């Protein structure tokens, strides 16, 4: 009997097995925000996989949320690329550089077919991160992206509208971002879907990241 228990625990320790009450053992990247690190499963963004960030509108801090990771990944010594696929506005180079992002590792793609480009970027293995702004994506398409990200060992970030919060999604992590209406510049982050993350909204101050 103890032997079977041991076998069972060995089986359950496998990284692809996830149980509701345990936190998934995945490779993670520190987010740059101490409060968020504490709330996310594994203590940071997943190293590869697909995450979804849902916002009510562009410009509510969706980039500030990822800036520390962008800066860290683009400055790594054999740096892979960070690809921006059909961003809603122009990424402003001086501001990115001021936050420590290496511009030479950034690639912007303007395309009427962002889903295709996002999948290519994730699958190629050339990108560390691929950010995409999609008007809409079916759960099946998101699943494809998730698989592509795992294959290319990249972190895929999908920016979508808050409207899709109620839809099911195969992404590893779903984050809802709400700006704080008054006071300091920041946002409230709620984890809509995570493997063992915090259930309470996490309040982040962007000035904390810049420091």
């Amino acid at each position, binding site marked *: 009997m103890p032997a079977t228990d041991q076998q069972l625990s060995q089986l359950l320790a496998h990284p692809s097995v996830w149980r509701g009450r345990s936190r998934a053992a995945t490779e993670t990247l520190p987010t740059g925000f101490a409060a968020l690190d504490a709330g996310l499963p594994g203590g940071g963004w997943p190293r*590869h996989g697909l995450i979804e960030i849902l916002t*009510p*509108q*562009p*410009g*509510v*801090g*969706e*980039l*500030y949320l990822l*800036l520390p990771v962008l800066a860290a990944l*683009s*400055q790594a*010594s*054999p740096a*892979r*690329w960070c*690809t921006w696929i059909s*961003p*809603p*506005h*122009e*990424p*402003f*180079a*001086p*501001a*990115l*550089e*001021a*936050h*420590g992002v*290496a*511009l*030479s*590792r*950034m*690639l*912007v*793609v*303007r*395309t009427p*077919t962002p889903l295709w*480009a996002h999948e*290519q*970027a994730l699958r*190629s*293995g*050339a*990108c560390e991160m691929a950010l995409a702004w999609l008007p809409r994506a079916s759960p099946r398409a998101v699943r494809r992206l998730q698989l592509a990200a795992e294959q*290319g*060992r*990249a972190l895929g970030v999908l920016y979508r509208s808050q409207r899709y919060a109620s839809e099911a999604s195969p992404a590893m992590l779903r984050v809802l971002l709400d*700006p*704080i*209406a008054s006071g300091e*510049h920041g946002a409230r982050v709620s984890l809509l879907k995570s493997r063992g993350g915090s259930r309470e909204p996490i309040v982040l101050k962007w*000035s904390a990241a*810049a*420091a």
Partner: protein
Amino acid sequence: MHPRAYRLVFPEPGQRRTPSVLRVRSAAPPPSGPGPSDQAALALEPRELWIAAHVPQLPLLALRAGSKGGGSAPLVVVDPEDHHQHIIDADENALAAGVCIGMTLGAALAAAPRIEPRPRDAARELVLMQRLAGLAATFTPQVSIDSPDALLLEIKSSLALFGGLRALCRQLRDACRADPVLAQIHAEPRFTLAPTALAALVAARAGARCFITDVNVLPARLKPLPLSTLRWPEQQNARLAAMGVRTLGELMRLPRAGFAKRFGVTMLADLDRLLGRRADPRRRLVPRERYRGRRDFDHEITDHERILQALSPLLDELEQFLRERQRGITALLCRFHHYRAEPTRCVLRLAAPEANAQRLRSLLRERLATLALPEPVRRCDLRSGALMEHALTSKPLWSPGERGHAPAGEMPALIEHLRARLGAAAVYGLARVAEHRPESAWRVAEPALEAAAARVTATTAGGETARRPLWLLHAPQLLESQRGRPRHHGALELLAGPERIESGWWDGADIQRDYYVASDVSGARLWIYRECTRQKCWFLHGLFG
């Protein structure tokens, strides 16, 4: 030295070599030790080894390659520039009917009235020989075409690389057999090996087996070959024949001085080259610097996938062409010809030199997917851009991103892939410009492929640039205002500012603006400005995303 020694002439095997005035280079290298015997010097390795490849019946093969399914009449080939219309080649039926190579057309028609004379296709013959030369160029850089129907390769320096003489010969023969174009027309080159170029050539043309590496046995082995293999002028051959000289052996027996007097020094020099007594430099074939391929489709094609399929042989040919030269291309031009409409051009540009047909095919597939063809395609031309140095790299053990492994070639591949479908302008990098005007402070840059050590020092948070938004709108957006206060989905609250930016009077894009950081009702931060001109309009220019 006795003056008589200068008179000779052609040494027979077994005889001691006698120095000759016309000899330019000695067969044996200068002696290094004390008292080297002649025997030791003779046993030394030859300096050069030549392989000759002769394609028998090349004019006939070239004609057959040009015409599909010829008639059944016996075929003879004549040179259109030849005044006497000598027959230079004839097929089996014509030969069986009594036609001989070298007879005039009139005589041949008299012998066999049913024969069908055709002019030779010199251009196509050259194309076939160049194809053969391309194959040979993978074995040695010293390849020359001895027009019209033979190829010469100097292989001495390539022996070590290809694992010895026999291995090299076998690989060369196999490469020629495996070539689809040569196999299609049943061209079977005959190979011979000899220490001099001319000897190899003569033996190949005579159809003799010749695998000689020792220059000293050359005269004995060449003796029985007919005189005509030297391809001297017909008139001189006739004179020699009248003297009873019909083989090379008989020719070698003639006295040297007398021969030079009667036939001229150039023919004597030929003979010296044949036996390795005189240097025989050959002009090296310089490979073409661009690839050109053309394919006529059997029927008109509209489907992209089938166009690609039809282009596949050309792409394989291109890969072979590039591999022989160890080069890659960064541009490929396809031209699709239609029945009436102007040809459609399609240019494929690559971020890094590429020589892999598989990669080119997948890029072309993306490119073709967006190409609009006005009419079905009848023919396609493929032209490469300039050839670039193409360093072959080994594949890494780790997949990229694994164990901190640096990316190896995935980035150019991704960029090419995206650009092939979306166009070159849709994929770009970012660069900073030292400028105060926000719209000029950045520019589109070509993605930097080499992984430069990009070190960025984050400026302090209180610096000027930290007050810049992460998003910049493509064009400033006019905001409505109410009693001088800007509104954007509700009233805006100004948090910081004004920061005046006034610049650009020198290039016409003059701006005078007061920038503010504002917060809208939902809490999003905006970067807005007010024109300092008379209108005092408010504009939204950026978002603190």
